């Protein structure tokens, strides 16, 4: 049994100085920002062309974009309000990604979470905060289940990229059916009824408009995700499975169980995001409900290099862009659709390894870590 005894280690030996850690973090952050920065630069340049074609002043339009995103308390409120669900849908992509899976199912998971949260909010008796608490938990749970399905299907040999896309359509239709039939409410707007006032999430206040405490929960969720992925043995397994399944098997970790866990966790985050959106921002699930938050989550995650801190930043960026586009529409008449075009271009280039290599040299290749899964669909 001698193999069990690995020589005792002195922990102090492994401790590093603050300066060392700081330097490392700054360098890592700098490198991580290169890809997003290049993609963003290209997008803004294309935006220039579009703005010119629409016959508007570029400076004015971009000034409005910036002002509308971050220029005032109200703007900040809109940005935060937009960013809140995106933090969750971003995490819904980032965490499975670390486990080696590509979750395109954030959209469906979010819808399922939203309707599950409202279901509790509408039907559960009891004091508001308690109901809200349970509703959020149930939203996360519902998202977990919806995310677990592709996890199971993966074990049976169906690739998650395809199954999650299919489950989006299924989840959205299911949600609409639930919202219009068993949970249908009174009122002009089709959908569920409003949850009681006490169940709705408290607003942040301070002139931040519709922004609610879901944003704080989003930050908390990102921190929890970080700790889970980088500081625990479970996260260590998850990352091993994601980056080198062969090594994981070699080390005695279950690839299937960890893949399942990764995408179910992702589904849970999307479900939480949906629940917070329905309970916080809207108080109900209407038909139509918010759309594309799940897909934009993919952009958020990639822009944030699939790191929780990056996801928060990416969500604020996306949220700011949407808020700013609105201001741009108001102040200059540039169509709202420009925001979609900008996002599309960011997405198009945010993983463009080779482009960055052309611009910055081969060294840039190593900066690509965290933006892509190297295996294809067949893997």
């Amino acid at each position, binding site marked *: 049994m001698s193999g069990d005894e690995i020589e005792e280690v002195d922990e102090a030996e492994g401790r590093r100085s603050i300066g060392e850690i700081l330097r490392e973090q700054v360098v890592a952050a700098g490198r991580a920002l290169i890809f997003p920065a290049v993609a963003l630069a290209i997008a803004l340049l294309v935006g220039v062309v579009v703005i010119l074609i629409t016959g508007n002043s570029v400076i004015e339009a971009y000034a409005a974009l910036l002002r509308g995103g971050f220029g005032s308390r109200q703007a900040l409120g809109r940005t935060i309000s937009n960013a809140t669900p995106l933090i969750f849908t971003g995490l819904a992509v980032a965490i499975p990604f670390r486990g080696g899976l590509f979750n395109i199912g954030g959209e469906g998971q979010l819808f399922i979470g939203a309707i599950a949260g409202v279901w509790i909010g509408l039907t559960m008796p009891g004091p508001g905060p308690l109901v809200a608490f349970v509703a959020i938990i149930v939203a996360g749970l519902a998202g977990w289940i919806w995310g677990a399905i592709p996890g199971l299907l993966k074990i049976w040999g169906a690739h998650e990229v*395809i199954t999650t896309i299919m489950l989006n359509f299924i989840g959205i239709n299911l949600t609409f059916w639930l919202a219009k039939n068993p949970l249908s409410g009174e009122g002009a707007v089709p959908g569920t009824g409003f949850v009681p006032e006490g169940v709705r999430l408290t607003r942040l206040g301070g002139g931040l408009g519709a922004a609610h405490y879901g944003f704080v929960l989003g930050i908390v969720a990102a921190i929890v995700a970080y700790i889970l992925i980088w500081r625990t043995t479970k996260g260590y397994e998850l990352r091993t499975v994601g980056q080198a399944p062969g090594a994981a098997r070699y080390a005695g970790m279950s690839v299937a169980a960890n893949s399942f866990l990764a995408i179910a966790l992702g589904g849970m985050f999307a479900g939480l995001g949906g629940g917070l959106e329905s309970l916080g921002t809207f108080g109900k699930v209407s038909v139509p409900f918010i759309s594309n938050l799940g897909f934009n989550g993919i952009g958020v995650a990639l822009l944030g290099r699939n790191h929780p801190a990056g996801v928060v930043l990416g969500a604020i960026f996306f949220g700011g862009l949407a808020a700013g586009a609105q201001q741009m529409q108001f102040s200059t008449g540039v169509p709202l659709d420009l925001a979609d075009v900008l996002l599309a271009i960011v997405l198009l280039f945010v993983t463009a390894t080779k482009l960055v290599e052309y611009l910055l040299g081969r060294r840039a290749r190593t900066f690509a870590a965290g933006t892509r899964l190297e295996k294809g669909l067949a893997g």
Partner: protein
Amino acid sequence: MDELTALLASTIRNATPLAFAALGGLFSERSGVINIGLEGMMLISAFAGVAGAQGSGSTVFGLLVALAVGLLFGLVHAVASITFEADQIISGIAINLLALGGTGLLMVLFFGSGGTSPRIEPFSRIDIPLLADIPIVGAIFSQSVLVYLLYALVPITWWVLYRSRFGLRLRAVGEVPEAVDTAGVNVFRLRYIGVGLSGMLAGLGGAFLSMSLLSAFTEGMTNGRGFIALAALIFGRWNPVGAFAAALLFGFAQAVVFRGGIGFTVPQEFIEMFPYLLVIVALVGFGGRAVPPAASGQPYRKE
């Protein structure tokens, strides 16, 4: 018109855009490039066809514009994912978003506002003499010229894939690009052609929607058909005949929904889930896995 004939005609109408896009997906994925952007390529081409026909007054010219724009979007996907080695799935999603936002912008620029474009003269229906008069199956031969093009494209695609040099190379490059490269064939060019063709065929699907089935562009009119086409491609196992058959199956399912053939005892939401459920079932069971071309999803990099 009796019910069966109508059902068949409706099936073909619904299946045609799916089949075009699925054939498009086939060329891309056989070359080793996943194409989630079919939806976007359909949408932008649906717009381009109408805009081209409006601008020139010629429907045929509009179709050419649709093809060109489909090709252009295919090439955007190709540049991003083949040359710049961006993630193919992300690039496809970006294409979809770009088409959605892009058509919104272009509608305002071309026609003054979003929504629905002015009408154009669509491709008219052509009855094939004698064949069109056969009861029931006559519906197959009373279609727009684009549908006949589809009928031709299915065997042509099969022939190209399995009986031509290009097809052999295409099948090889999606599996082991290194083998193609060392055989002296340019991997990048092959993939560009595959993805370019993909864009053009998806574009045909979009153009069929806006220029044959209907005669105007409506924002978001593809409404998920690109994804169903992707499903048809997988269900048909990356084989042109299989993909066409799967498109027909999905088209039939839609026809049944639209025609209320099952009496609406099942809520419509559940019927709309049907094709997607079918794909999942197909992936999991029903005679083993659907295995995509081995190299799909991975950029090819020399050195």
